[in-house]
């Protein structure tokens, strides 16, 4: 092992294994996770060449091979619990993009949620067994977040009892669905239902797209891959165009809405339940942000302990770059953020399951808040993580730019999280809608509960209306609880400002909607402040549950750093709201520097505790043993461009250049 890393690990103030248990939830979960990881990582069927050296077509092929193997192995090892499939298989082996993934994550769940018993009987077994490979086609080339704008039509023909599917315009071509381009033979297609001359809005249809046996596109179907992307090379995101393509009436998913053989439309009773899947996916993405950021931090911090550069004191040997204050300032707040998001991810997962049980018993009361929280936190964590991964990459200097660092891949595969499953700005505005509703509710005299309960305490709600600015506060910058209070005041203030500006615009504009658009910058700010408060609150509450003293001490430092860093970044809000004074802000900056020094000796152990195996990190710079340079050289030698000493282009272009000029 590299001497620097060995010394770092020996000098740590706590046992990283204990912290790993905290992150996984329990020692038992850690054990089970490692068991499944090893099962896969040690399996020769999953070995493959470094993806970085393959073409896109080869990468796709490797992914399909692994997907096919994965299905066989899951049967073999009897891994059936969806939890374990979702949280372990897909997640902990990231860099593992599955062309058949949507069959399991979207096609089957949609069939289960929206299909009748008969429909489930017909399609479930064969899709579980991958005789049918399904995907989910919603987004169109010209339409994304705004669902009602989708143009694909499904017109019912009572004569033949069929739906006729059409993509009437270029913009209506289905675009982006994963696995649609080359892999899938069926798709659940969202289309505007038209029957008896009337449009009834979006409904889901099971559409065969490729012939079983030959895998050729069926007549009336135009299907293909949408071309190269920033990342996700292994995924055949596809397009789908349908021309008078007919499917039987039974292919419309009819658990809720129905079309009778004669074309009569029967309305669904309620459709609130479809929120469930969205909330689940968004909660999951919060955890995904935490994992991706944790990986990036692991790579950048280990490498910063191995890399030496320049001098701090004249004449001394080159120090580890982790000893530079600027490097610590770049990385440690991100490390603290990674821990914060880990705990938020765990909280979202628990909350989802708790509320899901309530929903099962018919109690929908907590769903709106969870829905708003999942939307906002998905946006908040993915925006932060997006920037943070890139910061980690740049903290690795030139080598961070090479694919050997693994960081470009983490970045390009994570960044679509800001866009998919609800574009982030739109998500923030959904959270804002909930905040405004809650604000109005309090204003009309009703108390609100949950994470927004701070709105009950707004001074304007009290008998003597007064500016928020004169709230008396004494913030103790060494107490996570007190800092949580400060964040709460900031959120309350920004929610109130947004609400008032909105009211003001409503008075001056012709419609509420125009007013909403003209306040949307304020609304997004309010949502961000709310989410920031939630993260800080969850992190400081987590501290109370940590038993081990040394682990508690180091997590407390991280929590403080997370809180103080946020304050220093958003100091304007805290100053303008008189939540903190100028001299307190100066103290915050001073204390932050002390924390950087305090965290420095534990930095490597803190990333070790994330417990990523080298294969999962996919990084030469982030190797556990720290033998970076030897392996970097070996890695480069494997580049296909080095296969011959003289490249073909020499004879083609360079040699003639020398004679022609």
């Amino acid at each position, binding site marked *: 092992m590299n001497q620097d890393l060995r010394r770092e690990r020996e000098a740590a103030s706590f046992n990283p294994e204990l912290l790993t248990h905290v992150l996984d939830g329990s020692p038992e979960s850690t054990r089970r996770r490692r068991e499944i990881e090893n099962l896969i990582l040690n399996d020769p069927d999953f070995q493959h060449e470094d993806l970085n*050296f393959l073409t*896109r*077509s080869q990468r796709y092929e490797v992914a*399909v091979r692994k997907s096919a193997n994965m*299905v066989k192995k899951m049967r073999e090892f009897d891994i059936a619990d969806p939890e374990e499939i979702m949280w372990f298989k897909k997640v902990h082996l990231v860099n593992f993009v599955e062309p058949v993934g949507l069959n399991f994550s979207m096609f089957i769940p949609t069939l289960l949620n929206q299909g009748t018993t008969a429909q489930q009987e017909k399609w479930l077994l*064969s899709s579980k*067994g991958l005789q049918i490979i399904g995907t989910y086609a919603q987004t169109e*080339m*010209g339409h*994304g977040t*705004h669902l009602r704008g989708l143009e694909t039509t499904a017109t019912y023909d009572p004569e033949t009892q069929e739906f006729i599917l059409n993509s009437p315009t*270029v913009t209506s071509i289905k675009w982006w669905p994963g696995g649609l381009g080359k892999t899938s033979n069926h798709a659940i297609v969202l289309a505007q239902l038209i029957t008896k001359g009337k449009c009834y809005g979006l409904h889901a249809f099971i559409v065969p797209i490729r012939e079983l046996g030959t*895998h050729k596109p069926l007549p009336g179907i135009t299907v293909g*891959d*949408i*071309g*190269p*992307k*920033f990342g996700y*090379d292994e995924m055949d995101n596809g397009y789908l165009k349908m021309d008078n393509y007919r499917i039987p009436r039974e292919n419309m998913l009819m658990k809720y809405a129905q079309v009778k053989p004669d074309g009569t439309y029967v309305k669904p009773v309620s459709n609130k339940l479809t929120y469930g899947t969205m909330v689940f996916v968004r909660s999951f993405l919060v955890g995904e942000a935490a994992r991706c950021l944790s990986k990036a931090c692991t790579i950048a911090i280990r490498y910063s302990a191995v890399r030496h*550069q*320049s*001098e*701090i*004191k004249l004449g001394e040997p080159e120090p580890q770059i982790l000893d530079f204050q*600027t490097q610590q*300032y770049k990385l440690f707040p991100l490390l603290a953020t990674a821990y914060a998001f880990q705990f938020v991810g765990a909280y979202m997962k628990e909350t989802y399951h708790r509320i899901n049980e309530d929903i099962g018993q018919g109690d929908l009361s907590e769903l709106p808040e969870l829905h708003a929280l999942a939307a906002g936190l998905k946006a908040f964590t993915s925006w932060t993580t997006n920037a943070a991964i890139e910061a980690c*990459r740049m903290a690795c*200097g*030139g080598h961070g*730019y090479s*694919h050997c660092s693994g960081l470009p891949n983490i970045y390009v595969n994570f*960044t679509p999280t*800001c*866009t998919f499953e609800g*574009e982030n*700005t739109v998500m923030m505005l959904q959270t804002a809608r909930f905040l405004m509703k809650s604000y109005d509710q309090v204003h009309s005299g009703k108390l609100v509960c949950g994470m927004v309960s701070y709105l009950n305490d707004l001074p304007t709600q009290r008998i003597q209306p007064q500016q928020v600015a004169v709230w008396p506060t004494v913030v103790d910058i060494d107490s996570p609880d007190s800092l949580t209070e400060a964040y709460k005041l900031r959120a309350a203030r920004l929610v109130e400002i947004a609400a008032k500006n909105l009211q003001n615009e409503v008075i001056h504009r012709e419609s509420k909607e125009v007013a909403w*658009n*003209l306040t949307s910058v304020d609304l997004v700010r309010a949502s961000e402040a709310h989410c920031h408060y939630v993260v800080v609150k969850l992190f400081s509450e987590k501290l109370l549950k940590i038993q081990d003293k040394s682990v508690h001490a180091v997590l407390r430092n991280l929590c403080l750093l997370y809180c103080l860093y946020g304050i*220093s970044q958003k*100091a*304007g*809000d805290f*100053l*303008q709201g*008189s939540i903190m004074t*100028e001299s307190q802000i100066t103290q915050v*900056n001073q204390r932050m*520097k002390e924390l950087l020094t305090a965290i420095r000796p534990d930095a490597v152990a803190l990333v070790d505790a994330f417990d990523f195996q080298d294969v999962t990190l996919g990084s030469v710079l982030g190797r556990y043993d720290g033998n970076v*340079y030897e392996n970097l050289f070996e890695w480069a030698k494997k580049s296909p*461009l080095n296969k011959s*000493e003289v*490249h073909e*282009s*020499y004879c083609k*272009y*360079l040699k003639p*250049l*020398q004679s022609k*000029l």
Partner: protein
Amino acid sequence: MEVPRTLNSGGKSNEHYVAAVRKTFHLQIIAKRLGWSENSPEFYYAYRAVSGELAFNLHRVFQKSLRSLGSEEQIAKWNPLCNEFQIIASYAQTELGHGTYLQGLETEATYDTATQEFVVHSPTLTATKWWPGDISLSGQWGLSYPPCKNWKAPAREPADKWASYTRDHVAPLLSPTSVGRSATHTLVQAQLICSGARRGMHAFIVPIRSLEDHSPLPGVTVGDIGPKMGFDSIDNGFLRLDHVRVPRENMLSRFAQVLPDGTYFKLGSPQTNYFSMVVMRVDLLLGEIIPLLQKACVIAVRYSVIRRQSRIRPSDPEAKILDYQTQQQKLLPHLATAYAFHFLGSNLSEFLHSSYDAILNKDFSHLPELHALSAGIKAMVSDLCLQGTELCRRACGGHGYSNLSGLPSLVTKVTASCTYEGDNTVLYLQTARFLVKNYQQAHPTPGSTLQRSLPQSVAYLATTDLARCPAQKAADFLHPKLYTTAWAHVATRLVKDSVNHLETLMQSGADWDEAWNQTTILHLHAAKAHCYYISVKSFTETLQKLENEPEVQQVIKHLCDLYALHGILTSAADFLHDGFLSGAQVDAVRTAYLDLLRLIRKDAILLTDAFDFTDHCLNSALGCYDGNVYERLFHWAQESPTNTQGNPAYEKYLRPLLQSQRSKL
């Protein structure tokens, strides 16, 4: 509609590389035929037209280095060979284990008196030259070419009148190239050892490949460093030298010489090295980095008036996404930044040019200021261009993730610029050192020497300013003098603060190096504010020069206002901290800012058209001039190799899987 080849090559860097070599080859032939000289406007235009996807840029850098560091005889010998492409040159400075810190480089060149040769050697693994081509260190060579004189673009149609303001300067475009597979010779930066002493870094011309069959020469191990985030067309390389011998004449000897008997002597000032770095950075700003943000803005703004999403009012059709306030807030400040940086780069280039002759005549008085300015500005520009380009990409939603948008490749290029030619943090801190020094000079401690006048860019550090901003209402913030003063105030306060902390630590016993490392976060902060101040000031100065073009001046003023106010809101805490702005004033700034978004929204398309990029140059299905976004997207996707070639994965893996199941069912 021709499908751009680079987009659809399926991510194979090999194809990118071959395409780049091919294009360079043709460009050289055309240039030769039409008689374009190096650094001519024609060359710059040609580069701009092909979007920089070229090989051999370092070949020219090699030549420039040769001409500034080489003796007359050396220039006479090597320059014609380069011109005729008889040799293909590159150079190698950065090592596997060493980057920014030059003295840390390990490669050695030991003089052997017996044979009058240098023995060039990589003693350790970490000494392996890595990234050569990385322009990062090209600046060490004292490049001695002058930036081209100002010249105006050819007359344009009236609608394009802004274009001429954005096209004032010429900069040769430089990109990392080409040790990996192309180069036959490399300029190697190595520790010179002669007469038993180490003499520091010097440059040596080392032949690395046979001129007959291009195979590596004995003792040379050379190759490509593997796939990167971007720059697929460039074969960044590694180079290991095992006691490779080169004649004594191969050490570039304008400023230092080794005599046949091993005697070493110096002929020049080390300060000239600074100058070459300055020139390189200024060239990079205008020739490489800023156009990337400009292109991203063109693509995102055009797409935002084509794309419609949701409704603002239930009764309306779906709205153009640029009509959403949140979308305006994402894009328009970056459009303003793209203009701000263009003028900043141009003004810096002008300053450089006006100091150029003096420096050649060994008057180095402007050099420290030029160095500090170019370092900080390069850091700020690349930082903010990265932020802006990435934001433009994400503002295009899902399609921004597709390579067909042209945006991912802009992001991967601009992000590299934060590291090469000096890591941004290191550069900011170089500027900070200059600020600290000048602040201390302007405010001498009692008893120390008298102050002399400060260089122009930091003169504001010595002036006393207002303690409070006099603005009363939102409209007051639309005055260039007011917000320039505000930025000067904040920059001064932060510099003062960082100096105070530094001095306090030193008074309590810390030595200078330790005190510096303990206060670097503050220095970073101060340097950033200083650079922003400089950019605001430069923008307002450009504005004044536009007096004869009132229409253009008006629209540029909106951008200038937006740029300055966006900066204030982003750093609101710095303005609130000492009460320079009150909370109510910050609210007024926000009001003025939101109004500006609405005003600029109207001119947004023309403001991006004025950059005058051709569709070919943008290479984007989303950003094309005619706005036929969706047709183009569909067409380009259909031509993707994934669609035109078969699907072997189906036959190999999917079919067996499907069939194994069917037999069971």
